[in-house]
């Protein structure tokens, strides 16, 4: 477990940047002093403009474990202050300040004794910390059963498309809300309570549930889960929609 490390500031250097979608970038940072992080953790990035003006934002990590390389995928928010810079301008080799690792609640710990199944439910770019958990599960031979339900606008907007297809220890189901993949059996449409019930572990299995996405998505899904009989204390949520 990595959670005993104190939070502190680090310096990260951009090792690689690749467009994940047309409006999201995958950044790999080398952070020599990074102590590693749990799956689901996040960090704060702080940018300083030449005049001293600063802006800070939180981003979930797609990577976990005891590595000094961290990976994040940043979705550009129209009209945002920090995300357009990270997506469009931050160059390979450039340095940024990062604070972390952050988050000890919305995390999955591989060595846990608890073996009840884990249900991951993502809306849009909320898939990042959940992908991190599924990847951590992938590295373990034994452990809890994992399922991921991923609601995303269209195949073009999907994060981690290749990696998700290769997961062998997490059952992945993708719901396209606006536009389906060619030949998909299901027409596009928003997630409903019935579709949620059909695509997730039932309450009778007492799954631990992680939900991450925009506020409206998390509110709807968490509400349905409670209606479907899930124990509210087993449902952990992370919402975004704060600072742009």
């Amino acid at each position, binding site marked *: 477990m990595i959670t005993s490390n104190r939070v502190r500031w680090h310096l990260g250097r951009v090792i690689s940047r690749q467009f994940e979608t047309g409006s999201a970038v995958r950044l790999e940072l080398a952070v020599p002093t990074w102590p590693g992080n749990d799956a689901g953790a996040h960090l704060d990035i702080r940018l300083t403009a030449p005049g001293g003006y600063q802006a800070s934002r939180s981003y979930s990590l797609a990577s976990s474990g005891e590595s000094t390389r961290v990976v994040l995928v940043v979705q550009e928010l129209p009209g945002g202050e920090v995300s357009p810079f990270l997506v469009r301008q931050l160059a390979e080799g450039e*340095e940024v300040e990062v604070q972390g690792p952050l988050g000890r609640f919305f995390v999955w710990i591989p060595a846990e004794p608890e073996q009840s199944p884990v249900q991951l439910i993502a809306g849009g770019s909320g898939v990042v910390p959940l992908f991190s958990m599924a990847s951590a599960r992938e590295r373990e031979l034994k452990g809890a059963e994992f399922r991921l339900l991923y609601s995303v606008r269209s195949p073009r907007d999907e994060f981690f498309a290749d990696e998700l297809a290769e997961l062998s220890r997490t059952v992945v189901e993708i719901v396209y809300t606006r536009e389906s993949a060619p030949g998909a059996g299901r027409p596009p449409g928003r997630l409903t309570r019935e579709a949620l019930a059909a695509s997730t572990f039932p309450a009778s299995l007492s799954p631990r549930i992680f939900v991450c996405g925009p*506020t409206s998505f998390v509110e709807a899904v968490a509400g349905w889960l409670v209606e479907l009989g899930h124990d509210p204390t087993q449902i952990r949520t992370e919402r975004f929609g704060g600072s742009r």
Partner: protein
Amino acid sequence: MRPWLTQLMTTPAVVVASRISCLPLLPPDTSIGLRAYLRTRPPRRIRQKGAVVEVINSSFGGRRGSSDSRVPPGQTLVDDWPVLSTGPTRNVDESRWSFSITTEDKVAHRWNWNKLHQVGVEDIVTDIHCVTHWSKLDMAWRGVPIDRLFEDVETSYDYVMVRSYGGYTTNLPLEDLLDGQAWVATEAEGEPLRPEHGGPARLLVPHLYFWKSAKWVRGMEMMPSDDPGFWEQNGYHLRGDPWREERYW
């Protein structure tokens, strides 16, 4: 211009790492007091035990138009009101809601919805600051001052564990709750507090990061020491002063 500032401003966009202590560049004029100085100094250096690190992102412009002296460091103004909770929104009916203060003698002072309002509500206009980097200015709230609720409470303990429906907890020293600093709030922006924002009632302690302003609040328990609550056990600061960026530990 002070020499230390000039030096910082002429430093190229590279990292300056130093082993000197965390406040090595204190200006000669410290008559304003350390705390005031910490609030006013340029937000360029990163304080860190044993090191001062700097990096400047030369192509970052930023949205300086939103700068306002009421916004603490590391915060950004929002127009909407983001929702952040650890789990599902709790739906607590007003008819079922109550609030209690429990002392070391196991004496419980209890208010139901009507009794709370009989204590007397106040209108409050205040700024709020969330640890997830957003701030909202001049929010109109209505609530019952914690001072009034403590009028008949006898306790020798200095700390409080706040408890919510659903199990959330957060710790506060009594001195952050009294003297007009905190309320049990039931309305925001002219409307009853919605469930996702903690309705029917939440704690309002606007001078600290907003995780201290517990949603769906149901009571306070006096404690002899400052034991950590939920987020405080999960990596967040014991007190949470936004002006000192007491975010994490």
